[in-house]
């Protein structure tokens, strides 16, 4: 028997016979779909159509659907349709398919594009407002819990915090030290080149020292932490949210903020200043090395010079900012994690948002600090 599926039309006048043959399966559905389209164009004023299924070799639900749909169209066109050569099992299948033929649900309507844009813009603004409110709420909640540790020290989750500290601080040291070392060297080298025209290349050490300690060490660390730990926090909390683990915590009378968020926040707040310090030292080492090579300043004279060039407050300015950066990164990461919806896609989206927002906020905050320290002349 011919395996190629086909639908042929015979008969004349107001009575037609459609004979189906070959394999009517999902694998052939595309070809059949085309063929049926051709056949359906033919009839006009046909009163009776017999659909002969006896030539069909293999038959599955896709084939049954195509037969059923053809019959339905013909009936809609005013013809009377009967099946012939249909075995008992195919009859059951056709019956099942017929039973399942509902009107498709109306597609979800989308408004015109202009309205959609207006609506989206509005939504973004409203969302940002809500974000801010939620951020404040989360911050307040976490602070209350942190303060309560003073009165209920047994609630302090030391194990959890140490665990997070290891990942956030200890394991971040090599990469942060490395990039800071390189950046420190680059700043000094560039500074030395430019200042050489003024015969003041020694000042490049002042430049590198102040820049690194006040800004670069901290910013580099914050960006690295946002990318490393911020994304991890969002993904962890987000996938717990996805699998209803956060709901489970709540029903066990545990506060997710206390169990999940506060330990991570505390770990971050401890880790940031430590990492910033590491970054500062690595960058100054890098600068020292380049100073030795480029401007013939051996460590023995680089270190005393540096000590004169920067004051303690320059160093402290960087470190003071660190815990605040940690707070911002942690808050944003946790909040984004809590906003993950059911799908893997949304987890990816929130993780991206977490990193982008955290880096943006770190830079904004750093700007505010710069204005603040300038105003108090520190």
């Amino acid at each position: 028997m011919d395996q190629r599926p086909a639908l042929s039309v015979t008969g004349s006048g107001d009575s037609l016979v459609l004979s189906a043959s070959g394999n009517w399966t999902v694998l052939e559905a595309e070809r059949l779909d085309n063929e049926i389209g051709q056949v359906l164009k033919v009839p006009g004023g046909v009163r009776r159509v017999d659909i002969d299924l006896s030539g069909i070799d293999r038959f599955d639900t896709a084939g049954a659907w195509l037969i059923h749909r053809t019959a339905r169209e013909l009936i809609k066109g005013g013809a009377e349709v009967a099946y012939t050569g249909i075995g008992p099992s195919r009859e059951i299948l056709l019956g099942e398919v017929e039973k399942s033929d509902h009107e498709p649900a109306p597609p979800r309507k989308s408004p015109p594009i202009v309205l959609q844009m207006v609506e989206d813009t509005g939504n973004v603004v409203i969302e940002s407002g809500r974000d801010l409110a939620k951020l404040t709420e989360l911050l307040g909640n976490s602070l209350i819990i942190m303060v309560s540790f003073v009165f209920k020290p047994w609630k302090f989750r030391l194990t959890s915090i140490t665990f997070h500290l290891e990942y956030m601080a200890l394991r971040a040291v090599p990469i942060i030290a490395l990039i800071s070392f390189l950046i420190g060297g680059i700043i000094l080298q560039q500074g030395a080149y430019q200042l050489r025209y003024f015969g003041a290349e020694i000042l490049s050490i002042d430049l590198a020292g102040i820049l690194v300690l006040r800004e670069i060490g901290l910013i580099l660390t914050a960006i690295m932490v946002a990318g490393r730990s911020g994304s991890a926090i969002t993904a962890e909390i987000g996938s717990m949210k996805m699998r209803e683990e956060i709901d489970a915590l709540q029903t066990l009378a545990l506060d997710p903020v206390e169990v999940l968020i506060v330990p991570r926040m505390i770990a971050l707040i401890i880790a940031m200043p430590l990492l910033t310090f590491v970054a500062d030292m690595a960058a100054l080492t890098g600068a020292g090395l380049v100073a030795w090579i480029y401007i013939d300043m051996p460590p023995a004279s680089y270190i005393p010079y540096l000590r004169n060039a920067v004051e303690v407050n320059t160093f402290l300015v960087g470190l003071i900012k660190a815990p605040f950066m940690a707070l911002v990164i942690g808050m944003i990461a946790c909040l984004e994690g809590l906003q993950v919806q059911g799908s893997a896609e949304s987890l990816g989206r929130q993780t991206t948002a977490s990193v982008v927002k955290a880096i943006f906020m770190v830079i904004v905050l750093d700007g505010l600090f710069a204005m603040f320290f300038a105003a108090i002349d520190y």
Partner: protein
Amino acid sequence: MQPPAAKGAGDSAGENREAIVRARGIKVGFGATNIIDGLDLDVYRGEVLGVVGGSGTGKSVLLRTLVGLLPRRGGTIEMFGVDVDSANTEERRAVERRWGILFQQGALFSSLTVKQNIQVPMREHLQMPQALMDELAELKIAMVGLNPDAADKFPSELSGGMIKRASLARALALDPDLVFLDEPTSGLDPIGAADFDDLISKMRETLGLTVFMVTHDLDSLFSICDRVAALGNKKILVAGDLKTVIENPDPWIQEYFRGKRARGMAARISRS
């Protein structure tokens, strides 16, 4: 309702029938322990095989091993007469296209709607116009007993039972010859579960579908399974028609079929 099933126990029964799945000496384990050790199993064309066993005996592990998701420590598996170890990629793809799987947890793609989930295998394996795919997906959705408006919902918006139905629809998307079902009726209301059984037996009758079904549902076992395989002690304890299995002296089987939940099922079967 009960079709004439293979008489007698296990493998000797179906010598004359074609085994779609033939597993021999399967050994699977994690770490130091073996979950399955020296398991033999045949699934014959056109039958519904029910696999029972206590929680954690390795039913899901067995299913995942058969479809090649878990590595084996030993043994051979033949699917549709093809030894999966010696098959090349092409042959293996062809085999994979002929089966559908319903995972215990549903495993729907979370960022696609139900309709898109069902269309994934169609889109990947066939070239079909979108309109036809939509029609077929809607047909499958209706056949598994979901409301038409579930088509555009995302998995996270579905109830547990709806997830089961949607994953069955995806498993059936390409009208496979063989389906693996991991507890298809758990999480369904009794009426829904009966509909499910009904659908599966209709598909078996009309399409010659072969079904490997892990289940704890005694009603399913009773109403649609041609053969039952009981898993325990890392092996198939007994496989055969329900009567054979019930008469097996193994204490777990006795407890399972004669316990309070069984509601005199054993008695009902021995009488019939």
